[in-house]
């Protein structure tokens, strides 16, 4: 692997909450067993819609007062951060907390809190006197990272990265940069989303004709399937503890994997429609940085949201690189958990991470009849596939044409 003399960066801890699990091992089991995290929920102004909500204990690591003061994104972040540190075997009392950074990918932030305030405003006859003083700290873009900083008393550089649905990968990539620059010694990085707590995202996807629906909510998110009809909106979070390899080895840390390569680029094409050529370029650049070829990749995890054009364009890009050039297994995660927005990339990587240990590829859920335009060789669906896995390529793409590809390999 070519790091140009820069330090190698490894994953030593994972903290997550998904609509179907609240830790890495349970999440892996749920994905292998085909457990859906989707259900019908009552959405303000929208009625009954399919969504994915997490059921972690919000007050496991946060006081009731701070939970009430903060945001759902903050609560998810605080939970994941504590779990990621504990999983890494790190205790804050033994660390220089000014050397810890937090990098959280977010699709968007502040919509939930703003909608709630406007709802209250209407309940109060538009009397602005009751507008909450909590509105600004709840809606600043760095809210999720800031709540971690406050909760853990971490004083290093803590911020979020806005990158639509490519954001989960982006948090990890930012952590790699900061660790390599020597700005920090440990990073808590990944992505978080509270999206289904806003009606606006449901209404907007519905207006776009891209809101997933089915009388059985567990069947509503069906990437690559002929009958797919859009996105199931979910919340979630996944933060990784990342360290320089030498530091991890010195303390005898468990190493889940190494960040081998990555790339971020932009389509410069359309507000919402993807550009498969740019996606190809993104994956190729990530492979080049990792010093790998398509033959070296064992799993490609698709972004695959379950929209008509999104899935077709991504499959076209993946086909161009991998079909005929690689035996990489290809899977997707949103059939199980829906689209966790800013958390999607980070959660979906986590879903495959333990394949380094159990040598299985989790299947994509709800793919019954493949759309011919989405046909891919070595697509894993229906049931898990046994396979020796050493390298994973994780795709995440977002609106306004932001693409990210992250490659992780077993250490």
């Amino acid at each position: 692997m070519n790091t140009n003399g820069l330090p190698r960066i490894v994953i030593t801890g994972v903290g997550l909450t998904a609509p179907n699990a609240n830790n890495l091992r349970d999440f892996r089991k749920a994905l292998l067993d085909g457990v859906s995290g989707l259900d019908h929920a009552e959405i303000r102004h929208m009625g009954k819609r399919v969504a994915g909500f997490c059921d972690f204990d919000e007050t496991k690591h946060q006081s009731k007062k701070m939970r009430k003061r903060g945001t759902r994104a903050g609560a998810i972040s605080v939970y994941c951060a504590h779990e990621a540190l504990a999983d890494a075997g790190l205790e804050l009392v033994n660390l220089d907390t000014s050397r810890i950074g937090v990098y959280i990918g977010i699709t968007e932030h502040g919509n939930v809190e703003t909608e709630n305030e406007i709802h209250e405003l209407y309940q109060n006859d538009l009397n602005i006197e009751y507008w909450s003083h909590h509105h600004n700290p709840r809606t600043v873009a760095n809210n999720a990272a800031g709540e971690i900083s406050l909760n853990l008393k971490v004083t290093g550089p803590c911020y979020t990265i806005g990158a639509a649905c490519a954001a989960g990968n982006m948090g990890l990539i930012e952590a790699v940069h900061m660790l390599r620059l020597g700005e920090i010694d440990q990073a808590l990085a990944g992505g978080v989303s509270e999206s289904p707590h806003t009606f606006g995202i449901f209404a907007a996807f519905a207006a776009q004709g891209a809101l997933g629906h089915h009388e059985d909510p567990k069947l509503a998110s069906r990437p690559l399937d002929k009958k797919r009809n859009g996105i199931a909106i979910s919340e979630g979070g996944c933060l990784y503890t990342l360290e320089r390899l030498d530091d991890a080895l010195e303390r005898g840390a468990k190493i889940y994997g190494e960040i081998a390569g990555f790339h971020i680029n932009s389509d410069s094409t359309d507000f919402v429609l993807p550009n498969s050529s740019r996606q190809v370029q993104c994956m190729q650049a990530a492979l080049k940085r990792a010093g790998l070829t398509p033959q070296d990749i064992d799993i490609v995890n698709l972004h695959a949201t379950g929209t008509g054009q999104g899935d077709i364009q991504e499959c076209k890009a993946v086909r161009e690189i991998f079909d005929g050039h690689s035996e990489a297994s290809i899977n997707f995660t949103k059939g199980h958990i829906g689209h966790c927005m800013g958390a999607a990339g980070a959660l979906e990587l986590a879903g495959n991470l333990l394949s380094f240990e159990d040598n299985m590829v989790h299947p994509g859920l709800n793919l019954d009849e493949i759309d011919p335009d989405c046909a891919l060789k070595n697509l894993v669906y229906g049931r898990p596939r046994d396979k020796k896995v050493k390298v994973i390529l994780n795709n995440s793409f977002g609106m306004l044409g932001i693409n990210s590809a992250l490659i992780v390999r077993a250490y």
Partner: protein
Amino acid sequence: MEKTEVRQIVLDIIADIALDEDVTGIDDDKALRDQLDLDSMDFLDIVMELKKQHKIEVPQEDYPQLASMSSCVEYLKPKFEAVQ
């Protein structure tokens, strides 16, 4: 309005803010901040709840009047009586 009624209203508001703490043993003559984990945002919460629940305005220059339970009661009693 009796002082005990005003005290109970304030205590209920504080209990709903200091959710993790037992507020029943508050010493009325000591600063609330010295007994409970309250910061400036919490005091703004108290001001907001007085406004929302009881239509009582506490102008910024009067915030120091909310320092202790006894000063709260002294300050708020005439305000409660005025809105009754």
